[in-house]
């Protein structure tokens, strides 16, 4: 079980958080302009990387804020945590 450093609350047990899938997938501003394939790309396609992955997390049993974190999925090491809208601190 991880310890996650919520950017608003500080370090908390993983059980307080909810995972929300891959980060930095932006909802298209003009969905109607998109082809089926383009829309499907946004809707369905997600990466499942062994290694560094950018993820959305929600402090569901805390401040209820969404934020991003960078995790190495091979050993669960959390490399960075940052607020929504901020640039990832690492690549």
């Amino acid at each position, binding site marked *: 079980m991880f310890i996650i450093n919520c950017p608003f609350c500080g370090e908390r047990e993983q059980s307080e958080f909810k995972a929300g899938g891959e980060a930095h997938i932006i909802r298209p501003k003009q969905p109607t302009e998109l082809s089926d394939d383009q829309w499907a790309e946004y809707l369905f396609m997600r990466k499942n990387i062994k290694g560094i992955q950018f993820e959305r997390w929600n402090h569901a049993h805390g401040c209820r804020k969404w934020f991003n974190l960078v995790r190495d999925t091979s050993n669960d090491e959390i490399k960075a945590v940052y607020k*929504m809208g901020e640039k990832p601190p690492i690549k």
Partner: protein
Amino acid sequence: MTKNLRVKTGKAIDETYRISFKFNGSTYYGFKGDTLASALLANDIHLVGRSFKYHRPRGIMTAGSEEPNAIVQLHDNSSRTEPNVRATEVEIYEGLEASSQNCWPSVNFDVGGINNFLSPLLPAGFYYKTFMWPASFWEKYEYFIRKSAGLGKSPTKPDPDIYEHKYIHCDVLVIGAGISGIMAAKIAAKNNLKTLLVDEKPNLGGSTIYQNSDHFKINNQNSGSWVEKEINEIKKLENLEIKTRTTVVAYHGYNFLLARQNLTDHLPIEQRKNKTRHRLLKIRAKKVITATGSIERPMIFDNNDRPGILLSSAIKKYADYFGIACGEKNILFTNNDSAYETAISLIEKGINIEAIIDNREEINSKLIYEVEKNNIKIFKGYTIIDTSGYKRINKISIMQLSKDGQKVVGSKINLSCDCLGISGGWTPAVHLFTQSGGKLRFREEDQVFIPNTYPSDQLSIGACNGNLTLDEILRTTPESLIKFLNVKSSDYDNLEVLSEANKFKRNIWLLPSNKVLGKTKSFVDYQNDATSKDIKLALREGFRSIEHVKRYTTTGMGTDQGKLGNMHALGIISETTGTKMGELGTTTFRPPYTPLTFGTIVGRNVGEYFDVIRKTPLHDWHIDNNAEFENVGQWKRAWYYPRNTEDMHQAVQRESKAARASAGILDASTLGKIDIQGTDASEFLNRVYTNAWSKLAIGKCKYGLMLNEDGMVYDDGVTTRLGENHYIMTTTTGGAANVMSKLEDYLQTEWPELDVYLTSVTDHYATISVCGSNSKKIISKIITDVDFSDESFPHMSFKNVKIGKISCRIMRISFTGELSYEINVQANYGKSVWEKCMEAGKEFNITPYGTETMHLLRAEKGFIIVGQDTDATMTPIDLQMDWIVSKKKYDFIGKRSLYRSDTIREDRKQLVGLLTDNPDEVLEEGAQIVGDIKKSPIEMLGHVTSSYFSPNLRKSIALGVVKGGKNMMGQKLTIPMEKKNINVTVSDPVFLDKENKKLNA
């Protein structure tokens, strides 16, 4: 069988305290301090169980938690009985009852033993290969497999014991209180680190505590006395908490560990009352020091599993610690020096040793000289090729090993014995280390896996780190602890150590025999009866991955997870395939290290504490009025209110009729309620609902449908505009929390520019729905200063009102198709308002109705229930609800998905009504709908989602989803049931009052 093999007072035994216990129905005696295994051995009982597949007689093999064979059933009574308990870990107490498992009718005469003679027919993968076909025979096979298999019986009555969970935070957790763990705990605690030391055994000191040999000394004392002195010191340390009988069962990431603390299992039953039995410790440690020691390896030769064959170290422990001779004619078989430590202990206690068989040809160490001095015959360069004795070993056969160790040479020698100790060297106990994500490295010189890279702030020390001798431990451990704990010095910096064992080991994974492998039974996994033959067979059949071989042969898949034999399995695979051990990898050790009871896992979360129970403010009223309750998520909802002898059907029919004929009242408090405020609230609703919201006037209500981004219906409910920038949204009962999360997600991540604030207010209000043609009259009686005319208070509108002094929101909205009013009142006033409605409705026979009637009434009107008539594959178009999807809005959640090639297919499952040809026939919800039943294979067109007998229409009605159903109005379809086929006609889903006249009745 009444021999007493107690030789001399053992270190752990209190001979003044005699304890009686029962094993397989007979009474035996042991002493305080005995384990069940030691007490049985003292009574000369080796045979304790039967093996899983071949039902071979099996005995006690170890003296610890790695025991594969001596697993027993504890307690006779049906609430406390517990299977798969290792006799080597059970501390005896007055009145203990234990029995053998996996045998019928008794351990001495077991019908399943026939499997042993049939074993040529039971090779690896036998079950996979044989019982797969013909498929129709499976039921017959299953009966026999279940009867003869099985490891023990589970309790049939509720567990009477108390279990609990506890969180522990510490600076340093030390796992294992052997010599290394004790040093670690002392250094940590003395340096102001809050330290927790745990050990699975009742006492501290590991295997060092009972060493009194002059060959192993620390600062000129024998190692046992030295450790004892250290134990006395650490017990006084302020920063150190010590927990014995506490097994770390799981080591997760971020130094989160689970340990089971056993508090009462060693006490007589009557002393356990009101005490917690097991405590599951949830430990978060800044630093973890693993000092879990090592496990002695068996050796793999023909018939290496007979009762009377033990690990050599176990024989030593039984002698030194419990004061027991495991046999009167002992033979030791070894490939390293540690069997000589056992020999010296036995000699010292006057226990007879017939001979020692040593794989090694040239050996020299002080230990061996001492044994030789006692005129004990040592067969150097020999191996055991076979044993005999069905229920107890009585003879071994040995032959000389060839130089390369691949063959046996010379002639066979037979030696008689009643106990055989085997030592194949030591395997570091790296289970917890690997659980934590640690990676191992293979050390070629002595063929062991040792910790290599640590995934968290942790350190392995002592034997589990591959330091397998006393001098290695004492030379390296203090130094590595100083570094790891970042402290200046330790009390152990200048220890004087004497350790006279020689490290040389002759490792042969599978010992050669004079027979072909196919004729031997050399067990690698004792508990699962996997032999070296099975492993080789798997390899011949093409299995290569160690994980596949493991599953095919079931090696390492028993309750002991193959703690003894896994290394040999790897060794045999490595030798057979010519792959290096280091490259082969290991199978994964998974939690728990030793099995946990279910009680420990659930702790206090049993019975009414199993899950959170949510009750509405009207709950007590429902109870007082005889309601039956239904679980909806965590909510308890009034389901129906049976009167006198009514069953559910009768009650629902009565409630449904009354609600339409005059008046009904429903507790709708569980509906999710989200308060939405902010200057962009209207725009926000526009984006989350499919229909348009910007033009909704203040004081008006509107039904909305919410989709997922994939276009599928997610939730629905009525939202009311309370003010210019203020709405109250209702959601389904089950969807409330998810809708809230979803809305927050969009607001925070996609539309942070919107000025919108969301507050969940579900529990703040009681919601009371009064419906029926007389509902207006009833409401007007309790709210006198409001004009309830259609002009002033039309359908889908809202007013702030007062009932007495109580402020309420009242909405004229309907989920039944009847004229209805929904009163929302601060939760604490709920019951008083409900009672006022009941009082005012008395003259109109106002009838409380529950969720079942609510479902029926809405089905008559064809209103959907999200989650019942929809799953995550229904679009609004599929539901024939095109009217609610705005064509004008540029975007809303899920809009783009409504014209994907898949969602515009004509043959999608669509919601329709279903009318049975026989109006009294009520369909089963979930029943499959097909077209032509003569067509083969029959095409599945859909299924029934809701079905009722409608008392108001006096016929059966149902909703269902049918492929292309929208264009099938009036068509006949079939619902095949077990006993008959039911004919139905596809209809409009609205069955009652299509013109909505009743809403304005």
